[in-house]
């Protein structure tokens, strides 16, 4: 502890101030299709990965036209 006071309340206040902006701690959302079950979050991640893959395929290389 420094002479300037207890740092713990300051750290606690900082922790509260940088708390997650999007709260994901609630009950999970799941998609069901026959025996397939996938969480909404996992589905979103998989879709994002496919989007990134497609972008990597179709976007031109940066600076590619100069060559």
């Amino acid at each position, binding site marked *: 502890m420094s002479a300037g006071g207890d740092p713990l309340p300051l750290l606690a206040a900082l922790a509260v101030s*940088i*708390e*997650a*902006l*999007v709260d*994901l*701690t*609630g*009950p*999970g*959302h*799941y998609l069901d299709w026959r*025996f*397939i*079950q*996938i*969480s*909404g*979050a*996992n589905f*979103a*991640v*998989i879709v994002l990965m496919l989007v990134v893959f497609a972008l990597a*395929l*179709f976007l*031109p290389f940066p600076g*590619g036209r100069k*060559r």
Partner: protein
Amino acid sequence: MTAGRVDPAAGDWRGPRRPYDLVKEFIVALVAVSLLTVVLALLFSSPNEKGVTLEQWAQKAPNDFIATTVSELAGTSTSASYGPPYNHSSTGQQIGPLHLQKWAGVRIPVDPARDFVISPLRTMTADAAVQAAVRRYEAAPAAQQDQWAGAYADALSKAPEGDPAQVAAGDYGPVPAMASGLLGLAQSGALDSQLVNAGTGFYQADYTKPLLFLADGGYLADLAQAQHLSGNQWGMMNETGNFPGQPWLWLYTFWYQVRPFSTSTNADALVWGLMMLLSLALVLVPFIPGVRSIPRRLPLYRLVWRSYYREHGAPRR
């Protein structure tokens, strides 16, 4: 290679070349991913579920705790009948004639009745009734101990909601007093620290015993079920709450959802064996006829290098 056919992948590259700064790409990727990690952490934080304790279990589901305690004494719990690495009760998981679990041997000996119930009860030296019950139980022959515990387990399963207070009268010996004593010990929070292995040194971090005891009951399974973490819920790739989990484990957990794995008692060994075979096949892709030709037959590379192929046309075969 057969005569008359030219393998485009063989030989030296004779086309155009261009400079490429790999170090620059590495640094740009590192900075971009680091920034993305910080931004996502600020946006979403991370899962922070509190650990489940024996105290919590005993307070919130006392009937389940009592039933599990009795199953430990009766030798019918999952831990008691698991086999290696904890005991010799069964041969465990196997693939055909390969007794994988048995070959691994008993490396972490656990006697559930003694470790989870009797030894902790012996520490309750101030409770004369519990000490008398333990002495009576230990003085009885093994057959009598099994008869008491089995009869009480049956009676609990028939009582409304498994409530010990509503169990039919019968000869259960000292078992009800022992189960009740352990419930009190757990509700006080003392059992949590007693089951953590004290032989691991100054920092006691071996949670094998409390975890096995917890997993023998229905309370932990209910919590897992509610969070979609059970094996039959693709739980391996899920995370608590709305957080993304481990989607890359989809194939591993997929097998647990379909027959014969979903109904097999050897599912762990069978799924592991299958995944090892598939992993081997992945490593050997360059040597598997047909599969190794997929990239050539599905010319995705022409999409990646489309500017080159626009100028030079399709590769010669």
